């Protein structure tokens, strides 16, 4: 019964979306009642899709295997958490989650966007409803999660063991919120193009939504990276896999969008480009969905699904992206140049930021699609893997990181590069000092590592220098500076904190790549091996029977001078439902560094294969991302950016900082 209600709710939501889309696009200019209808419709869509989602959860939790999806993806012995996460650990369920984020963003605009002009609100909701109708229809017609089995099987097939992890509870919802959240920026852009009202106020309205999506996407990518790191287990945390790239491209474009929207909001410039980025960011999300869903990728993870799904998504992709860009082509020529500025200025710096981020996105896009296109056209097969991406991406990112700290110091309209360089001298000195110190301590090696570290420290210290400079430390009494610091707008803090977080991530990436230690060996119970300063003592192996798997658990004791001994218990599991074997690595965190232990196979002579890695400062990679996302959320609480900011403040551009 619940299943049928859920099924009906999803169909009804899609129908409401279709009606909203048509009504909104037809009558946005004239009818106030249509606006009210669309707002109510948006909230209703959210309630209905949430109900459909709840129906699925209910069926999974109660192990109702008459639901085909539950039979295929769940098992009665799974812990409750994994019964729930099984709902979106598959294609059909994750499409419902996808649609739920779409309607969630629409409802959020309907509820919290009260300050939006009526026409814009109507068009945004109409566009969002168009997306909901399309993807709701896609879900119902090609990926229906509500199909029943008769007779109902007694037991389900179980969730893929590698997904039976807390990561599945956190990563996809975060990632989807970010990834699909950019749909609202797309709707804003198309609405602006239709209505023709493209100005600084538009940027002010769209920026909080872009920021919100960006924060979730940042967290989602970081969480996914960490999940892969501990679950897939050879200590790698980024693989440049096409599906990773699929979420990384919207992130790069979205980051560019945040920065260009700033210029549009403050200076009424870069209008065409900002609209373009709003469209392209969500287009990249759609492209990612297509790549992941259609199985077009020659990736380990693509599954050869029914090709109709791929074709339908491709058609949706063509309609939405093609339509948006056609509209764009019509309107772009009518847009007038905004505020003037010198090349050396805050605007100029933000444009440079956009140039590098856009190039990085292109590098990733080309690298991801090129082998597919080449094979399609010529039949030649080539591989584009991590070595290619690390090279091209690194070459583009390095100059961006060099110029980054200058940006926030430059004044709008016309900046003074010499003065900014003087103000950054302290940060430069600290950067060089820290890098030399580290190399003196660790022993220098011939590699790019010192350059990478320089960049990381430069970005981090540059961010600190910005706050120090703004508060006027060293120029006035400390008490006065502290008061000034406290009085700075939150947006100023969030800029500095986000950039600091980026610096942290860069330092983590460089350190973990350049100074990682590896030990691949065989050990007998009772023996001891060393990796760096750490001594591993292998006590032995014991068998464990858990709820839904059996495991061999290795027992190790790690000793490090000056630290208490720690126990590490890496496992090799076999899941009873599917017979799938997995390995569970053991990770111990020392400060920001981690020791990573993997239990291998038994060798022919009865000893145990053991793999250990020491990853110095590796946690900074993800902590940096969390800091970046925190900065984004902090910025959202800034009074001047708040979603419900009063109309008066919107009409008057905020003073340039």
């Amino acid at each position: 019964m619940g299943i049928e209600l859920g099924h009906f709710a999803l169909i009804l939501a899609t129908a409401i979306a279709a009606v909203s889309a048509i009504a909104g696009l037809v009558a946005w200019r004239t009818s106030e009642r249509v606006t009210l209808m669309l707002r109510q419709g948006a909230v209703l869509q959210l309630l209905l899709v949430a109900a459909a989602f709840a129906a699925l959860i209910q069926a999974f939790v109660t192990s109702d295997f008459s639901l085909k999806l539950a039979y295929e993806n769940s098992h009665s012995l799974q812990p409750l958490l994994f019964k729930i996460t099984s709902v979106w650990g598959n294609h059909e369920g994750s499409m419902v989650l996808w649609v739920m984020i779409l309607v969630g963003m629409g409802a959020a605009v309907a509820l919290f966007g009260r300050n939006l002009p009526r026409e814009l609100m109507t068009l945004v909701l109409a566009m969002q409803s168009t997306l909901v109708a399309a993807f709701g229809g896609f879900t119902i017609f090609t990926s229906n999660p509500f199909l029943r089995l008769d007779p109902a099987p007694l037991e389900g097939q179980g969730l893929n063991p590698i997904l039976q992890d807390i990561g599945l509870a956190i990563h996809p919802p975060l990632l989807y919120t970010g990834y699909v959240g950019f749909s609202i920026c797309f709707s804003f852009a198309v609405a602006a193009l239709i209505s023709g009202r493209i100005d600084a106020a538009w940027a002010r309205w769209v920026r909080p939504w872009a920021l919100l999506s960006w924060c979730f996407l940042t967290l989602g990518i970081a969480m996914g990276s960490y999940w892969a790191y501990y679950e897939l287990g050879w200590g790698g945390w980024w693989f440049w896999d096409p599906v990773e790239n699929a979420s990384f491209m919207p992130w790069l474009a979205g980051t560019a969008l945040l920065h260009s929207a700033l210029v549009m909001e403050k200076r009424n410039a870069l209008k065409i480009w900002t609209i373009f980025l709003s469209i392209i960011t969500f287009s990249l999300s759609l492209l990612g969905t297509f790549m992941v869903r259609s199985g077009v990728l020659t990736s380990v993870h693509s599954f050869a699904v029914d090709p109709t799904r791929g074709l339908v998504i491709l058609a949706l992709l063509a309609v939405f992206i093609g339509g948006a860009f056609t509209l764009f082509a019509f309107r772009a020529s009518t847009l007038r140049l905004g505020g003037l500025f010198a090349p050396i200025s805050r605007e100029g710096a933000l444009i440079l930021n956009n140039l590098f981020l856009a190039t990085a996105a292109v590098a990733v896009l080309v690298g991801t699609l090129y082998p597919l296109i080449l094979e399609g056209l010529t039949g030649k097969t080539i591989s584009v893997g991590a070595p290619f991406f690390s090279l091209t991406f690194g070459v583009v990112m390095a100059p961006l990181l060099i110029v980054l700290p200058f940006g926030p110091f430059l004044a709008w309209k016309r900046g003074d590069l010499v003065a900014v360089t003087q103000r950054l001298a302290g940060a430069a000195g600290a950067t060089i000092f820290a890098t030399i110190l580290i190399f003196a301590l660790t022993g220098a090696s011939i590699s790019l590592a010192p350059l990478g570290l320089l960049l990381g420290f430069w970005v981090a210290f540059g961010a600190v220098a910005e706050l120090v400079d703004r508060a006027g430390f060293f120029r006035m009494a400390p008490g006065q500076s502290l008061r000034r610091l406290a009085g700075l707008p939150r947006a100023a803090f969030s800029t500095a904190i986000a950039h600091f977080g980026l610096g942290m991530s860069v330092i983590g990436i460089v350190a973990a790549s350049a100074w990682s230690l590896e030990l691949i060996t065989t050990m007998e119970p009772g023996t001891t091996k060393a990796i760096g300063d750490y001594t591993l003592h292998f006590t032995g192996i014991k068998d464990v029977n858990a709820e839904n798997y059996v495991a061999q658990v290795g027992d190790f004791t790690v000793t490090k001078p000056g630290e208490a001994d720690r126990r590490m218990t890496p496992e090799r599991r076999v899941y009873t439902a599917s017979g799938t074997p997995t390995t569970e690595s053991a990770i111990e965190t020392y400060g920001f560094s981690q020791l990573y232990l993997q239990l291998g196979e038994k060798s022919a002579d009865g000893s145990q294969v053991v793999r250990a890695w020491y990853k110095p400062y590796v946690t900074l990679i993800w902590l940096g991302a969390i800091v970046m996302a925190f900065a984004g959320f902090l910025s959202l609480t800034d009074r001047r950016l708040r979603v419900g900011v009063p109309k008066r403040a919107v009409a008057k551009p905020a003073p340039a900082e």
Partner: protein
Amino acid sequence: MRALLILLTTLWLALPAFAVNPDEMLSDPALEARARTISEGLRCLVCQNESIDDSDADLAHEIRVLVRQRLTAGDTDDQVRQYLVARYGEFVLLKPVFAWHTLILWVAAPGILVIGGVVLLVASRRRRALAAPAGELSPEEQRVLDELRGDQA
């Protein structure tokens, strides 16, 4: 993000064994280090998008052993790669060669950067040209300004 892939996959086979095994490794650390560096750039042909260094497939194991055999026989790094390309095709290289059929791949990003840079320079010149008149006032404007200033004083 790799995790996302997995999430979206139903055919994923989680394999418990891992990558390089102690019994494959060469006793000469310098040679073994070279083997590892080469392995990181070679694709495991059956599992795709994983290097043979990370993969536990049988084929990856065979190629790892092959790489070490060639190195022990005295091949240079490039000779080992060429040997494998001859045997398995270009597909085995994770970093594609620079050739006509990969030209667009290699020049796309630098090309965008250069073109974007040039467009921005031109645009900024044009803007400056537009803005230039504002820099110097005509005598008439100067007179008006002086008058206004005089009024304020």
